[in-house]
Every structure is written in structure tokens, then in C-alpha cells.
């Protein structure tokens, strides 16, 4: 390898690419030669560093200086100051002043990284995902190579994975080693290995970041899985909404093939394994394992009853294992460092780390990986830097549409599979959305039910009709039309959904409602009895009002109102909103420079 005196790492994950990181690379490619330092400085495209809200992020090594929100226009200064003269560009080293996530108290972004432990994300942001040599230089394909050259007994490998305590990161938390063992012990000439990269939880992007930042770790792990269970074909099922991930994965597969790391007779052994990509088509239920397999077969993604379990009869009716992207990303490092190393991290029944996509009303939005057992409080307030704008914390939502909300009283819950279930939520695939005092919990519950109504495949009645009924009841509540009987009805339907649905989509669909009813019942009561939404989110229970004493009679609000329901006399009489006409669009409130308009 050539020697460079400096490396410039530019994040090319989806978040940063959306904010023009590709143009930043173009600028470096242009400016380095102009300054005659293209032989001394190497520009590396990497995967996500995690701190997406402050992107595009550029890191300059050896110093490890991190520049936030870099504009393509800033590149000239980084080149001439930092790379040529060795002076840091201080201006770009602080998070953006205009950003909501950098108000006064979050001066120390390094807190963001301090409590984290990067295992599944070990290579994300550290290597160029498009260069297989960089993965190999970081012990990549070492596990696979060792296994094949030593002809290690598949059951011995499976035993090591069992001892590591690794559980599925896709939501259910099923022990990975056990799943592999089932499939390994079934006799069949043809078996399949599948990877679930459907990432359906809206508001989660861990799996995408791993595929974009470290695709080889997934390829290596799937190949190992193929060796362990006796499969020679694998499929990665990726959401179609993830074009960059798909492209990186394709590229990585091509390189792995050229190096003989997948394909025929890997490492000269008699083991062969091939991989293919299948694109999803926007159906959440296809994240469910049986539905996913139907989808790969080219059919509608309707779940099928289990048993038979996929380990016995899965894809094309052959024994199949399915694991999540993050689960796979843990496999190579478990095998190089050993089961004991992995099992030394985490809690009694949940080992290792978990990646969360931290989002919503929190200062540091991005990807975080923490050891199991870290508390919710540590994530939100230390890693996440707390709530922006001095607002009050209300809840964090995990588990997406199958999960629930964790209130302030449970902030000290150590995160693991069992504790989150006990708190009325679940681990889920890793979405973690923070909500503050302005988030209406009834509205959020309805938001998730709207999602499940859309996504229910319609195969079984409790789910198809139950989700719809719950959605209607919640709509009644937020419109101020509900009675206490409706609250009772809501709980009844929730129970029948839980007990009567065929797949986990329906079985868990009521969780967002049940958990908010449990922890935030007072908000439901407010909506139903007092006909009030304290957060002024629910339109049916909110009115816009102009405070006459504050109104400067400028008329701006009247100009902005799309339905012309504000009247007054310019400069003479305070303006007034005709509440019966108002469509509650909020345009007037945004427009008023004097804060004369309020919601009540």
C-alpha cells in the first residue's frame, strides 16, 4: 500500500449523500492536485459515522479532526488551511450554529461517542466500503478463511455462536445459534441462507448503514452460515428504497467473487456458495420471515402459518435460515475474537451490543451502538445530548409499529430484550424515537395504527378489521367525538388482535396503543372527557387565536391564510380569525412576526 501523510474520510452514507457529500469528494479530487498534494493525501469514501444530523461529516486523520456540516464550498479552506498549512478550520469544528441540535448545552459532541461500543458498526466510517482490501486489512474474511482452511466442523462453529449468546437483531431476539442448528440438522440437498434487509420500521436505518458502510461483513457471515447449515445459495432481501445500499452490496459481491471469497470452491475447498439480491417492493409485512420468502418466490407477501418453520420448510419449500443484517454483521467478529469475548458484554440474557437509530426530539440524531444493559437515560441524555430547546422529555418509542413508548419513570431501565418487553415495548430492529412535551401520545398511537392499517396484508380477519376499528376509534378520540366507552372498546379490540392474528404484525399491532394507554392514560382522558389536546397537536381540539393586545395590525397573517378567514383593518383594528372557517393550517402563526397568534 502507498503511504499517505493524511487521510480525509468523507461520509457517503445516505444521510450525508443527501446533503451533497458526493460533491465534496469531487471538490477534493479537484483541489488536491491543484495544490500538488494528491500524492500525500488520500480521500476515502466511508459509510456512516453515526452523527447524521451534523452531516456531511469529513474527518481528517492522523489528527482525527471532525468537520461538521461541510459544504462543497468549504473544501477549498480545508485543503489550503488544514492539509497544506496544518491549521484546523475551527469554524467547521463546532456543530452548526443554526442547528436545533446544537443549542448552548450540547457543546461536547464527543459525549456522542464516549458511551458507545462499536462492534456491529466496527468498520462503518472506518473503511472504504467499496474496497475489499480495506475490509481484509481489518481482519475481514479471516473467520471464513480459518474455518475453511481448518475444515472446522460446522456443529462446532454453531456451538460457538450459541455460547456467544447472540440473539437475532431483527426484533424477535431468537438465539441465532439455535436457529442455525435446526437448519443444519435437517437433511436436504438444497438449503438456503437469507438476509433480512427489509428494514421496515419507519424511522430506523441501522441495517442500511451497515450495508452501505460494511457490506463485506454481511457477505462473509452469510457464507459462513451457508457452510454451517449446508447451503450453497443465499439471498439478500433489500428494500427498494435503499439504492445506495443495493449498489454497494452489488459492488462488494462482485469483488468477493473476483477474490474467490464467494462462488465455486471457496479458498480452494469443496465448499461453494453464491449470493443474489432481491429487491422488496414496499410492503412492511415482507419483513416477516414467511412473507419475505413468499416475496422472493415472486408471490404476494402473505405470511403462512408456522409450523412448519423455515428451518424445515422455507424458501422454495427447502430448509432456510433468515437473519437480520446486524445479526450477520456480528458473526465474523464473534468467530475471530471468540464466544467468550462476546458473551462478556451485555446483560445476563442479552449479550453484546445493539445499534439504535436515535431520532426525533433529541440533540444528537444518528446511529448509536451501545452495550446491552445501557440505560435509556444514558442513551437519550448522555449520548443523545438531551432534548433540544430546553423542552421536557416525554417518552421514547422503540420497536416501531410493534413496540411501545417508555415514559420518564422508566428511563433507568437497562436495555435488553426482556426489560424492554417488561416495560411494555420491545427491542424491535432498533428505531428509537425521542418525544418531548409537544408530542401528543394519542396522535402517535394513531400514527402507528394508520401504518398497520395500510400494511396489514388482509389475510386474517382480526388483523384486517381490528386494526381498522382501532384506527377509527383513535380518530374519534383525537377529533373530540369519543366517550369513555370508546376507550374500553379500544382495549377490547386490542386484545382480540393480540390473540387472534396469524402473524406478529397483527399480534403486536396494538402495542403502541396499549403502552400509551398504560403510561399516558391521562392524555386519553383529556381528549375524551375534557375535549382538550394539551400539546395542541390534534386539530379537532385546537383553535388558532389572535391576542388582540399583541396584534400590531400588520395584516401579514391575513395575506397568508389560504382560506381568507382572517379579517381586520390594516394599521387600525386588530385582526381576528373566523374559527368556523379556519382549516388550522398554521400558516398565520408562522407568518406573524409578533407572536400574536397562539394555539389553544
Amino acid at each position: 500500500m502507498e503511504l499517505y501523510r493524511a487521510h480525509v474520510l468523507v461520509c457517503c452514507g445516505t444521510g450525508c449523500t443527501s446533503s451533497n457529500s458526493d460533491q465534496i469528494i469531487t471538490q477534493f479530487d479537484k483541489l488536491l492536485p491543484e495544490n500538488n498534494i494528491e500524492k500525500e493525501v488520500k480521500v476515502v469514501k466511508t459509510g456512516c459515522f453515526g452523527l447524521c444530523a451534523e452531516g456531511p461529516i469529513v474527518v481528517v486523520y492522523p489528527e482525527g479532526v471532525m468537520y461538521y456540516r461541510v459544504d462543497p464550498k468549504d473544501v477549498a479552506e480545508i485543503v489550503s488551511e488544514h492539509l497544506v498549512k496544518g491549521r484546523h478550520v475551527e469554524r467547521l469544528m463546532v456543530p452548526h450554529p443554526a442547528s436545533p441540535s446544537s443549542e448552548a448545552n450540547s457543546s461536547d459532541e464527543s459525549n456522542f461517542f464516549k458511551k458507545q461500543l462499536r462492534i456491529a458498526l466496527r468498520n462503518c466510517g472506518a473503511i472504504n466500503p467499496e474496497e475489499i482490501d480495506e475490509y481484509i486489512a481489518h481482519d475481514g474474511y479471516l473467520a471464513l478463511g480459518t474455518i475453511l482452511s481448518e475444515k472446522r466442523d460446522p456443529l462446532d462453529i454453531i456451538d460457538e455462536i450459541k455460547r456467544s449468546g447472540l440473539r437475532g437483531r431483527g426484533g424477535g431476539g431468537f438465539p441465532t445459534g439455535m436457529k442455525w442448528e435446526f437448519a443444519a440438522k435437517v437433511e436436504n440437498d438444497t438449503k438456503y441462507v437469507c438476509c433480512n434487509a427489509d428494514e421496515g420500521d419507519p424511522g430506523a436505518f441501522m441495517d442500511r448503514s451497515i450495508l452501505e458502510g460494511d457490506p463485506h461483513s454481511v457477505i462473509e457471515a452469510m457464507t459462513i452460515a451457508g457452510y454451517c447449515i449446508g447451503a450453497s445459495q443465499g439471498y439478500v432481501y433489500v428494500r427498494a428504497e435503499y439504492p445506495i445500499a443495493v449498489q454497494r452490496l452489488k459492488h462488494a459481491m462482485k469483488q468477493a467473487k473476483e477474490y474467490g471469497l464467494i462462488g465455486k470452491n471457496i479458498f480452494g475447498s469443496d465448499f461453494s456458495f453464491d449470493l443474489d439480491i432481491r429487491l422488496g417492493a414496499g410492503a412492511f409485512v415482507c419483513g416477516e420471515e414467511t412473507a419475505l420468502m413468499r416475496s422472493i418466490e415472486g408471490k404476494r407477501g402473505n405470511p403462512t402459518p408456522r409450523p412448519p418453520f423455515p428451518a424445515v420448510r422455507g424458501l422454495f419449500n427447502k430448509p432456510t435460515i433468515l437473519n437480520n443484517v446486524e445479526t450477520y454483521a456480528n458473526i465474523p467478529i464473534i468467530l475471530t475474537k471468540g464466544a467468550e469475548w462476546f458473551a462478556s458484554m451485555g446483560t445476563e440474557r442479552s449479550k453484546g451490543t445493539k445499534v439504535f437509530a436515535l431520532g426525533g426530539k433529541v440533540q444528537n440524531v444518528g446511529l448509536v451502538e451501545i452495550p446491552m444493559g445501557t440505560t435509556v437515560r444514558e442513551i437519550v441524555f448522555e449520548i443523545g445530548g438531551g432534548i433540544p430547546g430546553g423542552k421536557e422529555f416525554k417518552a421514547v418509542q422503540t420497536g416501531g409499529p410493534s413496540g411501545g413508548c417508555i415514559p420518564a419513570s422508566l428511563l433507568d431501565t437497562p436495555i435488553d430484550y426482556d426489560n424492554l418487553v417488561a416495560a411494555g415495548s420491545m427491542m424491535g430492529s432498533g428505531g428509537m424515537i425521542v418525544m418531548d412535551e409537544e408530542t401528543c401520545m394519542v396522535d402517535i398511537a394513531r400514527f402507528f395504527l394508520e401504518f398497520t392499517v395500510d400494511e396489514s396484508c388482509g389475510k386474517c380477519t382480526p388483523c384486517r378489521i381490528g386494526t381498522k376499528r382501532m384506527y377509527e376509534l383513535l380518530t374519534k378520540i383525537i377529533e373530540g367525538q369519543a366517550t369513555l366507552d370508546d376507550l374500553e372498546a379500544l382495549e377490547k379490540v386490542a386484545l382480540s388482535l393480540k390473540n387472534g392474528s396469524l402473524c406478529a404484525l397483527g399480534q403486536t399491532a396494538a402495542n403502541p396503543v396499549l403502552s400509551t394507554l398504560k403510561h399516558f392514560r391521562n392524555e386519553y382522558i383529556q381528549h375524551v372527557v375534557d375535549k382538550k389536546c394539551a400539546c395542541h397537536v390534534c386539530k379537532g381540539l385546537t383553535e388558532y387565536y389572535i391576542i388582540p393586545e399583541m396584534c400590531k395590525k400588520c395584516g401579514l397573517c391575513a395575506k397568508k391564510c389560504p382560506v381568507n378567514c382572517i379579517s381586520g383593518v390594516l394599521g387600525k383594528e386588530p385582526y381576528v380569525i373566523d374559527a368556523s372557517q379556519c382549516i388550522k393550517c398554521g400558516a398565520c402563526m408562522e407568518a406573524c412576526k409578533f407572536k400574536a397568534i397562539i394555539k389553544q
Partner: protein
Amino acid sequence: MLSYAVGGESTVGKTKLTPEEMSKKLDEALTHYEGQGQKALMSALQEAQEIYGYLPLPVQKRVAMTLNISVAEVYGVVSFYSFFSLKPKGEYVFNVCLGTACYVKGAQKILERIEDNLGIKAGDVTTDRKFSISACRCVGACGLAPVILVNDDVYGRLTPEEIPGIIAKYKEA
């Protein structure tokens, strides 16, 4: 919208294919799938939609014939997956992310502002076929919430006030 490259070239002003060119491209694409049956259906439909922008019945019939399966099976799959569209989209598609991260940060208000401004609802197309609005669930750029995509262009950290300006940009294009 399989083809969108987030952050890639803007599609503003991209030339469109004539019906004959589309038909020819479809023929080329489908040659790879000849007689492959149901298991190739999703990929074939994804390619077809990339060419046409949606999946009108004649296109579905051709896919069915190529794969040697029934049109009913093709239609069953097309109607199941939200990614497949039976209706043409506008020249500029405003795709509003309504994932949780965006929702908590006010995506609903963004969507309403776009609807008000264009005078159509999510799922609809303007009569001149220039604009359509759709809602999607998480484009994976949650760090930039709230996010919208206009064809390939990504707009993040949005406020409703910025919407009229963005729409104006495409009206002129």
C-alpha cells in the same frame, strides 16, 4: 422509483422516452426473463416500472406472457406491493417521508402545505400531470428529518415555509 439515486443528478429537465422507445426498452429488458415463471416476476415488474413509471395493464400482460404465468397472478402481485403503481405519476413526484422520525418532527404539516399549494391530495396527480404527491415511510435519512424527495432531489431539515419556494422551482423548470 427504483432508479432514484439519492443525492445524484437532479432530474429536472430530463428528456422523456417516446412510447415506441419505451416499448423497445421493455422488450430488451424482458428477454432476460423469458419463460422463467413466477420467481422472476418481482424483478421483471421492477424493471418494467422503471421504464414506464407505472404498470398499465398492457405492460402487465406482456410481463405475464414473457414469464408464462397468468395475468391474474401478475395483477395480484402488482396490487399487493405499494411500490408498484397502476396510475401514472406526475413529472415531478413529491415524496413526503412520513416515517416516525419525520412525523415527530412535523412531517404532517409539510405534507399539508404541499397539498394546499398544489391543490391535490397525497396519491393524486395534477391535471396537467406535472406534479404528484405520495407519502413514503422512511427513506433512511432520519438524521435530516423532516425529509422530502422531489424525484431524485432530497430536501431535509424542512420547515413548511420553505415549501412554496421549492414548488416554484419545479413550476419554472
